[in-house]
């Protein structure tokens, strides 16, 4: 048993009350000051101070002090004096008479009227690494010599203080980091807003950008020009991080602005190059392809500034690549970039960043891997195709090393197979199904595919009769059937004259809930590759666009 009145018990109580002080207040400076003052008074000493190493670790700076002299802010060179010794050795220093200590630095005494006799100094350290010290000067009273007990007490205070200071620093760092992260997130959002919005269904260009981090050094863009042609670009800024993202934002903005008036891609790249050379710094550069696509003729004119060669996958599956002859943008001014001309002719034109070919870590995808992947997904609709590819790429290399950017240009026009027109009467559905069977067969569809097409189209037409016309036989519906050579897909456009429907109301329902009705949209979505409501042509109410790959299997389990 410890006698409650013993010195040891008083000591424990004193340390406990010091500890409580640290948990009660969140104001660090005030807590440290009060605790040190209490220790100073407890020891009956003349002065006390707390010093912290500066960021460069060249000086110890007084954070606060108590006593006759105010030395707050005083900076003493680290390495000199008893204070430094305590920090360097990470040990308690007790000097009963400073005159006998070779390390004693009398500078403060000389500049003030204060006279130092004895010093008790404890280091502030976290995980064995000292970063400051607390010192108590000149013990007074009846017994003016520091004792082992004083040393223990100061060490206890130093441990509490070190923990509190470290904790406060970590918190401040976290706050600063969080605020930086927030800034970067915002920058990423602004950057993404510079990329094109999701295009309308059947738009012949689709791009995708998956940044490795919040912000990207890659970009792509497409802009519909006044004459219906579409300007497009894809680029990659050297380096990573904020600097790359700023240059990316600048380059894409220049493209989006200039492409409306400068319609020769080579001249456009030359203008952007001169601008980037003039203002870019730190040896940064941009590899970029810019071009113009004419949807009516399927012609593409493009120019390449040091970017990876675009790939044309022709309708027959053959690949053509177009190497760049010119250097990237931002290196030297006054360059001319030659235009190249190609015709899609049912093929697909791909632009990509090095994040695509270098994806996969050690098992790098490479050009050959990319071509294999283009073959594998060739018959998927544009958006679905790029999403599937990016999903494959990003799952093979986690975390991503580099931004992944892909853009494809492909005609969405199909070769007409036939047009059917019917009154909005359920009686017409039987004939519709017969005619669709014939047309699909003539386009080369297999029996199983034909049945799937019939099921899906029947549901779509039912919806027009039942919901579009509300059962009235006064209206009519029209089915345009086409064949997309490049994707080897059948295309169906269902047109009606019913009031425009709200797309949001057309959705598949949960099948968990067993009840009659509401299955039609589910059937169409399950069987078709695409089902999209598009802007209806003049004179029509709605246009539902559907497509299905002709090599699709296991659609309906017909044995």
């Amino acid at each position: 048993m410890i006698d409650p009145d013993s010195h040891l018990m008083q000591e424990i109580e004193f340390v406990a009350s010091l500890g409580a002080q640290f948990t009660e207040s969140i104001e660090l400076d005030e807590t440290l000051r009060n605790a040190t003052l209490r220790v100073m008074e407890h020891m009956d000493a003349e002065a006390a101070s707390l010093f912290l190493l500066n960021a460069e670790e060249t000086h110890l700076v007084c954070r606060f002090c108590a006593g006759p002299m105010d030395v707050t802010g005083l900076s003493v060179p680290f390495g000199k004096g008893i204070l430094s010794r305590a920090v360097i050795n990470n040990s308690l220093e007790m000097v009963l008479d400073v005159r006998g200590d070779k390390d004693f630095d009398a500078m403060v005494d000389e500049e003030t009227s204060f006279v130092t006799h004895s010093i008790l100094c404890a280091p502030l350290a976290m995980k064995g690494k000292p970063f400051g010290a607390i010192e108590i000067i000149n013990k007074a009273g009846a017994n003016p010599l520091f004792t082992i007990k004083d040393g223990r007490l100061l060490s206890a205070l130093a441990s509490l203080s070190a923990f509190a200071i470290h904790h406060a620093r970590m918190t401040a760092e976290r706050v600063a980091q969080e605020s930086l992260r927030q800034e970067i997130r915002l920058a990423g959002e602004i950057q993404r807003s510079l990329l094109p919005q999701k295009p309308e269904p059947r738009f012949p260009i689709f791009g995708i950008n998956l940044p490795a981090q919040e912000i990207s050094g890659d970009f792509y863009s497409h802009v519909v020009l006044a004459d219906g042609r579409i300007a497009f670009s894809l680029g990659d800024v050297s380096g990573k991080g904020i600097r790359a993202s700023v240059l990316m934002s600048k380059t894409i903005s220049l493209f989006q602005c200039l492409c409306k008036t400068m319609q020769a891609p080579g001249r456009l790249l030359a203008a952007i190059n001169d601008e980037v050379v003039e203002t870019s710094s730190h040896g940064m550069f941009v590899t970029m392809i810019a071009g113009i696509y004419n949807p009516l003729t399927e012609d593409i004119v493009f120019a390449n500034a040091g970017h990876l060669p675009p790939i044309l996958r022709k309708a027959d599956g053959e690949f053509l690549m177009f190497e760049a002859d010119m250097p990237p943008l931002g290196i030297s001014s006054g360059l001319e970039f030659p235009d190249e001309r190609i015709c899609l002719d049912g093929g697909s034109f791909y632009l990509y960043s090095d994040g695509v070919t270098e994806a996969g870590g050690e098992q790098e995808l490479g050009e050959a891997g990319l071509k294999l992947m283009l073959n594998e997904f060739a018959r998927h609709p544009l958006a679905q195709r790029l999403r599937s590819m990016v999903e494959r790429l990003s799952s093979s290399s986690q975390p991503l090393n580099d931004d992944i950017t892909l853009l494809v240009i492909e005609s969405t026009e199909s070769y007409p197979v036939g047009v059917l027109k019917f009154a909005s009467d359920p009686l017409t559905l039987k004939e519709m199904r017969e005619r669709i069977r014939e047309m699909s067969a003539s386009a080369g569809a297999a029996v199983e595919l034909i049945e799937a097409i019939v099921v899906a189209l029947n549901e779509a037409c039912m919806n027009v009769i039942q919901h579009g016309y509300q059962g009235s036989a006064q209206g009519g519906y029209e089915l345009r059937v086409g064949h997309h050579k490049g994707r080897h897909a059948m295309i169906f456009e269902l047109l009606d004259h019913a009031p425009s429907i709200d797309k949001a109301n057309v959705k598949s329902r949960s099948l968990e809930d067993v009840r009659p009705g509401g299955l039609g949209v589910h059937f169409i979505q399950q069987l078709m590759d695409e089902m999209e409501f598009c802007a209806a042509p003049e004179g029509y109410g709605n246009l539902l666009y559907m497509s299905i790959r002709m090599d699709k299997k296991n659609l309906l389990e017909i044995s």
Partner: protein
Amino acid sequence: MTHSVTAHGKLQILSLTGEVDMHSSPIARKVLLDLVKTGSPVAVDLSAVTYMDSSGVATLVEALQNAKKLGQGFVLAAPTGSVLGVIKLARLDKVFRIVASLAECGDLAA
């Protein structure tokens, strides 16, 4: 679409032939729901149905639910490949009792 009803012991059998679609399914629905209402177990012979759309599937679901309420058996017999395909597409193949031939629903006749 044509239809006929026969009885086999307690079991009422509705045989459908041809295409059950938006035009014909209201007829099938009326006959089938009336049959279920009698309180007898019901089998729908689908062996001669060449096509069925979602309105036909909805009719079968409605009849099944009514039969369950009355605590009566309800079975789909001998669906053709295309009809079974549509039932599976609606994920209803586990909801219905489906048998390969009418002979397999003898339990409902007794």
